[in-house]
């Protein structure tokens, strides 16, 4: 065996630039808050988080500041009740958390089928223990997180790949979803989550148009 054959392949991953890491963290946080209500540890962590650097009076910085403030006075039990009232009621939920609801999905070529297909093309698949359909916004944002920062055995996706997934599966429905979430009668803490989500998705849409 020569030395070259004995060498294992080496993969080097460059550290993400801070703004790309922040995008991944925002996707992760939104996914987490939509999949389940914040527990005490998460509320405490958000409440203790600093403001966004250089955000000034921008929409994202303002929404982040309001979520931080709301997290400091919210308790986990109330958050759980609110999450249940918004998303997990029996029958028709107050707010649908599925992208297909907002895009007029039909059983044929349903968004979750296309999401699964596009994820497979990117070498990804839902976790075996995932309980939510692929077009659940929590799952879509988690997929974006992996595309931005890598994970699940792969590095970050190219910006073109990120843009395609975002434009195909997130952007068409996210604006209406966050508007519905913010307007829903049971929304209190989640009104702040909706404002943050709307501001972040708008920022993403604009940033993708710049490259």
């Amino acid at each position: 065996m020569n030395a070259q054959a004995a060498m294992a392949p080496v993969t080097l991953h460059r550290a993400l630039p801070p703004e790309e890491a922040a995008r991944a963290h925002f996707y992760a946080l939104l996914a987490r808050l939509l999949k389940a209500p914040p527990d005490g540890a998460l509320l405490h962590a958000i409440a203790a988080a600093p403001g966004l650097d250089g955000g000034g009076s921008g929409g994202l910085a303002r929404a982040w500041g309001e979520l931080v403030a709301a997290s400091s006075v919210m308790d986990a039990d109330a958050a759980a009740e609110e999450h249940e009232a918004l998303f997990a009621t029996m029958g028709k939920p107050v707010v649908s958390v599925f992208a297909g609801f907002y895009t007029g999905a039909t059983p044929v070529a349903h968004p979750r089928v296309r999401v699964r297909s596009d994820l497979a093309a990117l070498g990804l698949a839902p976790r075996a223990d995932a309980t939510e359909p692929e077009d659940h916004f929590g799952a879509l944002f988690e997929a974006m997180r992996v595309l931005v920062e890598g994970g699940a055995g792969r590095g970050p996706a190219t910006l073109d790949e990120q843009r395609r997934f975002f434009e195909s599966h997130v952007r068409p429905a996210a604006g209406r979803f966050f508007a519905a979430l913010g307007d829903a009668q049971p929304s209190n803490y989640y009104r702040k989550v909706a404002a943050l989500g709307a501001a972040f998705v708008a920022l993403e849409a604009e940033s993708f148009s710049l490259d």
Partner: protein
Amino acid sequence: MKSTKSTTRRNFLLAAGLGGAGAVAAVATARKPATGAAKGAKVAQGPQGYRASEHVLKYYKTTEV
């Protein structure tokens, strides 16, 4: 030019406040639901959290192809 556009996008994100990853990174370590922190564990099977409710199961049935 590609590099100019990339710089523009980066500047745009930085101006929006995404330069300080620490703000949101601080919550990243606490983002996992307490009931499902371990890899491979069932997430949120208790009274808190999202779960495969009857509504979701019905939704699945209506979207089968």
